[in-house]
């Protein structure tokens, strides 16, 4: 039982499916949520899905140089920066529109 469970966690596919699910959830969130913050979180989910991929591949396929782990670290940093920028812009949006609902920002079209 234990070993079977370990087997599942020891498989690359598990992590790939996990990442894919995360990616899909993130994508859904990006497309479906109207709240800018929620959209931002969904984007972060996509990034994290990528991180999981990197880690998984690193762990199962290319272990020698720990590139995947390094990348994940970078992604975390970059994501943080992104969040900072995004939040600042969201704040600006909020100041102007008094809302963080994306449906309010519909000036530009055509």
């Amino acid at each position: 039982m234990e070993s079977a469970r370990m087997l599942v966690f020891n498989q690359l596919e598990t992590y790939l499916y996990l990442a894919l699910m995360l990616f899909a959830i993130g994508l859904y969130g990006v497309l479906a949520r109207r709240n800018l913050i929620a959209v931002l979180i969904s984007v972060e989910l996509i990034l994290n899905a990528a991180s999981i991929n990197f880690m998984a591949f690193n762990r199962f396929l290319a272990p020698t140089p720990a590139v995947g782990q390094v990348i994940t670290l970078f992604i975390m940093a970059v994501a943080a920066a992104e969040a900072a920028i995004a939040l600042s812009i969201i704040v600006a949006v909020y100041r102007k529109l008094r809302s963080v609902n994306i449906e309010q920002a519909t000036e530009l079209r055509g």
Partner: protein
Amino acid sequence: MNMMLFGPELYFLGMALVLFFLSLQRRVRVEQTYYVALWLSVGGVVLAGWCLFQEGELFFKAYKVDLFSQIFKAALAVGLFLVLMISRNLAHVEERCHPEFYLFLTTCTLGMMMLVSSVELLTIYVSLELSSYSLYILVPLRRGDDIDTEAGIKYLFIGAVSSGFMLFGLSYIFGATHTTYLAEIMPKMGQLIQNPIGVVGLLLALAGFFFKVSVFPFHFWAPDVYQGAANQVTTFIATASKAAAVAMLLRFAALGASFGYSFAEALVVLSIASMTLGNLVAIIQKDFKRMLAYSSIAHAGYILMGVLTMKEAGYISAIYYALAYLFMNFSVFLVIHEVASDGRDLKIPELAGLWYRSPLLTMTLILGIFALAGVPPSIGFTGKLLLFTSAMSSGYFWLVLIGAVNGTISLYFYLRVVYHAYFLEPGPRPKIHLSWPSRLLNYGVCGIIIGFGVFPDRIVELAKVAARLVL
């Protein structure tokens, strides 16, 4: 390590630092900041030119300095310089933000410079994000109506999603090839054809670059950002940023070469869709910058024609066209900047009577517009013809045919600009007086557009050497 290899990047890093310190000052001295930025960028141009023929590898081969990258670095430096040339009058950016404006332009340039030299996935990703984030900030820096933040938020989210896709794709590539070095990925791509992960990975990874070049369907940000951002920022996005993105696309798309026909086919579809959509929608635009945004989408389609051939001729023409596009687009933005000197959005009818208000600007505008439309004798014509030539040489007859027909469609809205600028009466609008640097800039741009259009040989030869390095 030879410092000269990393010279331009270091220089711009230093420049960014200088500007950063300037931005820390409590009281912003607008003029002074401007001149510091301008002269520093002049130095950058000189240095980038100086380093044009450097060759070498850095950072454990993650960073490759070759003629290909150096050409684009020089182009980027020139692009920054040109944008700064028209930034003297930053009417729509708050004064206290001026140093930051220059700072982010510089970091963006720096990011793109690194981008064109990167040959490793992580490096590519990080430098891409560096340049993108700078732009995310630059876009809403504009003061005034709400459209800047709206443009900013849309740009940010489309960009973030694209880079998310890209990263996800990169992870698959990494998984499939077990390496992050392009040079090592390239030979393994052949096997990836069997592997769906490889296909999906490459496709998703390209999304990030397509976003930068604004290829359909990643073009949605372009119209909004072009319209919403300050004129100078738009200029920068439309010229320098575009060139860098093309460079990276060239590097990256070469990965697909071994994928064979179906991959190229997909790119053909994107190319056709881009130019057709761009040109058709541009017809109905009233805002000049928005129209140019659609035109840039169309031009992305043209450039893709060169990219998707995966052959030397195609790469040469794509490089040539990217450089050409930088200049011809700049000439148009130069006019926009001079006409809308208060930084407002320029509607096309507001160009009325430009022939009377400033003949020189009219000349620049007409040359730039004609170059965009691919009318000789201009750099745009030659570039487009070279693109078509290379696509045809690779057997894409229909693509060339549709491209050529698109050229006709595009002429309609380009000519409408000429019509407004050259035919209509000025009405109460006063004459425009140009300062002498501005005049010089006009002459220079016109000279480049015609000169390199008629005598393309030097650039083509350079591009040839560069293209060989990438493929």
